[in-house]
């Protein structure tokens, strides 16, 4: 078994059951989607460069905002995390592969079909889905373009893929840990993914349910979301956000795990408060199920509902704060160096915390009546998703890429990529706080003149950010093609089983389980 290498040619990738191959497939797929979703974002920012309609008409603009959100959430961020889990979880717990390798292949290979189906709707009559990534009924049912049916099936496939991926990760973590690797010895990345997988299994069926109800309303004459038939449009929002709020944590918890691996390495000091990090992650996951209606403060909920969801939401700041304090304390009295993964991780902590602050402001229900559905919200969730999820993923790629391909990336290029991205994202998203507070609603293709200056700045930042991701692709390909050979340890003070195997990681690792002390 030890010398059994990959198959040759295309069949290697089509039929692979190897966790490293499948991880690679997920990561490249997610990067492709990241670029596609990025192009959609740049269409939006180009149109919003100045007041008036210049480039696209409102119908197409709405398709762009919708597809940008869907592609980034389901196509870029989630598959990237699954790809990282595939590569890293077995190597971190000393397992030879994922527990369910054939299902692993299947859960990846249905994804391209889902996205082909969804993206192809851009070219059908009536256009792509245009009702926002939150697809509120009845705009997404009675008033939707015909392509909504394609969208529903695409969501079903993505959901199936996520559920299979999660089952696999849970099965792997529960059954394939090396002897001595108790739960409380698992690296935090494994822990955060373990919890994330449970979140996914809990909420993806809810998403599948809500899109099925839409399908019934559209094609089979039911009235779940139509008041005229005795249904309720607000019911849609409750179900959607019962999925949607845990979903946003699904997109951030694995990133918490990543920076919890990286910060100790480059601070040359063990992670502070490992146990409390695990408990905080679990608390955040639990709370994510009881805060959904904070997305709906203006739908006309009763006072008691508003108060409950406001207080529950504010409570999330406690475990999140614990995590930030632990990271900062890990750095305190360490011996810090600033390699690219560390730069991304530090930016993660700072900018994610800023996104957390605006999140706390949004939790304050009375103030949310002013913030709701403005660019302040857009600024908030891009601050948690871009420097949160995306920077987390990039930090991970720089950190583990030498282990994956055996070559060191070029540190100067990596740092250049970091600074371009850092400047680009802040120039793009910081001014959105301002226009949002000044009264600019989200999802509009054209805006009043007083918002022109900051929008222009945001558009310039967006093109800078977009261009620097093409540069990122160049850096990654260059590293894979060649470069300085990486040592097995790669980083001087990195800890964990993945650093005990050779670089690049052999096709099969830990065929004999390691002993964990």
């Amino acid at each position, binding site marked *: 078994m030890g010398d059994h290498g990959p198959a040759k040619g295309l069949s290697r990738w089509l039929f692979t059951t190897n966790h490293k191959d499948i991880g690679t497939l997920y990561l490249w797929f997610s990067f492709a989607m990241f670029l596609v979703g990025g192009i959609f974002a740049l269409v939006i920012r*180009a149109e919003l*460069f*100045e*007041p008036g*309609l*210049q*480039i*696209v008409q*409102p*119908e197409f603009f*709405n398709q762009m905002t919708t597809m940008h959100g869907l592609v980034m959430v389901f196509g870029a961020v989630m598959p990237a995390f699954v790809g990282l889990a595939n590569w890293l979880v077995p190597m971190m717990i000393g397992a030879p592969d994922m527990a369910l390798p054939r299902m692993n292949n299947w859960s990846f290979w249905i994804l391209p079909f889902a996205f082909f189906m969804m993206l192809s709707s*851009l*070219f*059908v*009559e009536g*256009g792509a889905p245009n009702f926002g990534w939150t697809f509120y009924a009845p*705009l997404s049912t009675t*008033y939707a373009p*015909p392509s909504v049916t394609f969208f529903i099936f695409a969501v079903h496939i993505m959901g199936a893929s996520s559920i299979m991926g999660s089952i696999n990760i849970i099965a792997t973590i529960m059954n394939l840990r090396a002897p001595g690797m108790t739960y409380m010895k698992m690296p935090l990345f494994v822990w955060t993914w373990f919890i994330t997988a449970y979140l996914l299994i809990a909420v993806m069926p809810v998403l599948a349910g809500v899109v099925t109800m839409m399908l019934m309303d559209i094609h089979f004459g039911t009235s779940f979301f*139509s*008041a005229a038939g005795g249904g*309720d*449009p607000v019911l849609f929002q409750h179900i959607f956000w019962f999925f949607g709020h845990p979903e946003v944590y699904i997109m951030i918890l694995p990133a918490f795990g990543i920076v919890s691996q990286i910060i100790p390495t480059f601070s040359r000091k063990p992670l*502070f*408060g*490992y146990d409390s990090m695990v408990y905080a992650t679990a608390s955040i996951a639990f709370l994510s199920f009881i805060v959904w209606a904070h997305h709906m403060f*203006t*739908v*006309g909920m009763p006072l008691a509902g508003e108060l409950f969801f*406001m*207080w529950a939401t504010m409570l999330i700041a406690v475990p999140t*704060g614990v995590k930030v*304090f632990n990271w900062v*304390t890990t*750095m305190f*009295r*360490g011996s*810090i160096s600033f390699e690219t993964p560390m730069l991304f991780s530090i930016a993660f902590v700072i900018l994610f*915390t800023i996104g957390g602050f605006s999140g*706390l*402001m949004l939790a*304050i*229900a*009375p*103030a949310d*009546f*002013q913030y709701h*559905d403005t660019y302040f919200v857009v600024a908030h969730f891009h601050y948690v998703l871009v420097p949160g999820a995306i920077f987390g993923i990039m930090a991970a790629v720089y950190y583990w890429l030498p282990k994956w391909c055996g070559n060191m990336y070029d540190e100067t290029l990596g740092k250049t990529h970091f600074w371009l991205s850092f400047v680009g994202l802040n120039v793009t998203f910081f001014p959105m706080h*301002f226009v949002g*507070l*000044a009264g600019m*609603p989200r*999802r*509009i293709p*054209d*805006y*009043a*003149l007083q918002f*022109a*200056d900051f929008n222009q700045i945001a558009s310039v930042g967006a093109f800078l950010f977009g261009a620097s991701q093409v540069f990122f692709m160049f850096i990654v390909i260059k590293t894979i093609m060649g470069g300085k050979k990486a040592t097995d340890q790669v980083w001087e003070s990195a800890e964990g089983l993945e650093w005990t195997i050779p670089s690049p990681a052999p096709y099969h690792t830990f065929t004999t389980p390691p002993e964990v002390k």
Partner: protein
Amino acid sequence: MSLDLSKSLTPVCRVLAGAGLLFGSAAVMAESAVEPAQRWGVNMTPGVTEISRGIYDLHMLIFWICVVIGILVFGVMFYSMYKFRHSKGAKPATFHENTTVEVIWTVVPALILIGMGIPASSMLMDMYDDAEDAEVSVLITGYQWKWKYEYMDEGVSFFSNMRTSRGEINNIEPKGEHYLLEVDNPLVIPTDTKVRFLITANDVIHAWWVPAFAVKQDAIPGFINTAWTVVEEEGVYRGQCAELCGRDHGFMPIVVNAMEKSEYNSWLGARQAEAAELAQLIKQEKTFDELMDVGKDVYNKQCVVCHGANGEGGVGKAIAGSPVATGPMDQHLSVMVNGVPGTAMQAFGAQLNEIELAAVVTYARNQWGNNMGDSVQPVDVYNFKQAN
């Protein structure tokens, strides 16, 4: 669903073609724009009601608390990054847990949150009020893409459409000061008076938002939400629809004209008189030419966006040579009054009065090569509406 490449590729191509156009036209656009009142605005405004000021104060309070926490946390972080650099030969400590500090940084933030939550809860209780004691009640209905205001028990109702011209939006004409934030018929309310808003929608979900009042409430078809305000200063207040509601979501502004109670009363009286006058006018016979003149105005205001300046069609079907405009009168009236379900053709029965409906139908039947030669009288439209 069919795959029609020639049609579907257009938006994509337009993106590519437009990208060049955008940067070329930037300079021209900047000159033609009127200087807006509030450039570089970075914050919420306190507004003109007790509630809006309360929300503003709460917003600033939370903001400053966040700033202080941020300075402390980032301060420690930057200090560590400066002081404990590997390149300066810093030797790492080995501590990695301390239950006492974990408890402290769990409990202290929780206390701060309680400090925020208490004023926020009391603010929320102040805002929640069914406003049954309001002196004025307005039923607000969101339509794709306009608002309808109905003064309860006063017999006055009207639609409020965006007034900004397509020329301004398409960068053909210079943009006015209140670009996209101006309407033909603003909502008029009295100052220093409790006004209740009953908010609903006719088609999809909209949201009625006036930042200066801190009133934002979703308009949900089939349900009625309540909001209220007491405006303290006279003035014109502008807002926008805040919930994505389809194509022209960005083009359904809200303008509220708050005036002194006496002025408001005389305004309301005038609107009531107009309504009575209209009831009389409907009974009068119109000549063909009168109908054509009014019809042209109505067409250019209501129909031109979808059906084109020469009835050539666009989002909507072509009117020139259409089977509806050259078919039976009853069918034509039905399309106008009831709309065509499942398409972009709305029901105009409630949005246009009988004279306007009669005129625009007559106009469509006798324009752009449509040569029906017939006309319909307002009273016929009235009878049609009663019967259907």
